[in-house]
């Protein structure tokens, strides 16, 4: 970044061109931050939706006044949250266990030469054969105003292709990705429930002074 800023100042270009380049760089950076903010907003919405589980679990307890204090509420709501966590975390960990069992079983009974590293190998039968792999170590560099900077795209080591022999890697990769997504959901749900319980426990048992004043 600093190199590019230096280049902007030192390069033999007109002030107008420099301003244009600066405008585009700043625009791209701002758009990138907005995109990150937008993704964050989606997560916020999703967490707010997951928070509602606490309401669904405990509204009857408060409505019937079985629970009458924040301490009682926290105790019972956390117990329920932990029960949900047991269900939520069960599936991803089951999938990870399944991946391990399939891998070990395949190695034991079908192909003893398969190693763990083979599952990632883009030249052989790893799931990386499905993705473009670039050679960052050998990226072309050039001298530019005394600085050694990238001068071209890195060479492509692997073009995405389907390798029938890598089917076991694809299956294990697919199951692992689903497991990771379920795990992320489980962690977000636990976070949402726990923060809701601790943040709002007191507000359920107190009245707003504004509401009280309205009835005076």
């Amino acid at each position: 970044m600093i190199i590019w800023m230096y280049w902007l100042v030192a390069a033999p270009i007109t002030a107008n061109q420099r301003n244009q380049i600066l405008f585009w760089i700043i625009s791209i950076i701002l758009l990138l931050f907005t995109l990150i903010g937008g993704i964050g907003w989606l997560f916020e919405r999703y967490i707010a939706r997951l928070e509602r589980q606490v309401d669904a679990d405990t509204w009857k307890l408060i409505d019937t006044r079985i629970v009458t204090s924040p301490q009682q509420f926290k105790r019972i709501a956390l117990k329920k949250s932990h029960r949900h966590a047991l269900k939520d975390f069960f599936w991803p960990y089951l999938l990870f266990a399944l991946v391990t069992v399939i891998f070990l079983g395949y190695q034991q009974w079908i192909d003893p030469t398969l190693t763990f590293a083979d599952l990632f190998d883009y030249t052989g039968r790893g799931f990386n054969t499905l993705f473009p792999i670039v050679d960052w170590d050998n990226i072309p560099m050039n001298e530019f105003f005394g600085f050694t900077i990238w001068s071209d795209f890195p060479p492509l080591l692997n073009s995405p292709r389907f390798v029938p022999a890598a089917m076991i890697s694809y299956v294990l990769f697919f199951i692992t990705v689903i497991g990771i997504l379920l795990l992320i959901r489980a962690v977000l749900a636990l976070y949402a429930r726990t923060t809701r319980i601790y943040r709002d426990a007191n507000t359920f048992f107190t009245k707003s002074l504004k509401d009280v004043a309205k009835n005076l």
Partner: protein
Amino acid sequence: MKELAGFIKRTFIGVAYVLGSPIIAMVFILFWLYGTLVFLFSSIQSIYLFFSGQGVFSPFEEDLKAATRYDFMQRNHPSSHRQTTPSEGETQS
């Protein structure tokens, strides 16, 4: 104008997310560990409950009380049960 304000606000929130990403990652990892511990302890507890003949996901005592009281309230005053909440112990109709 409102859209522009929203855009600028979202951009600043994006900057905050980038700056706070190590903390977000740390909180995520802590909740993952917390969830994993809860999962392990709850699993052990569930196995104990299962083999001792109790339901693993049976309702809590408080839920049973609440359900009984809620039924009582619904039967007696379906529209305005808040004014007629029975006192403690008055859960049976």
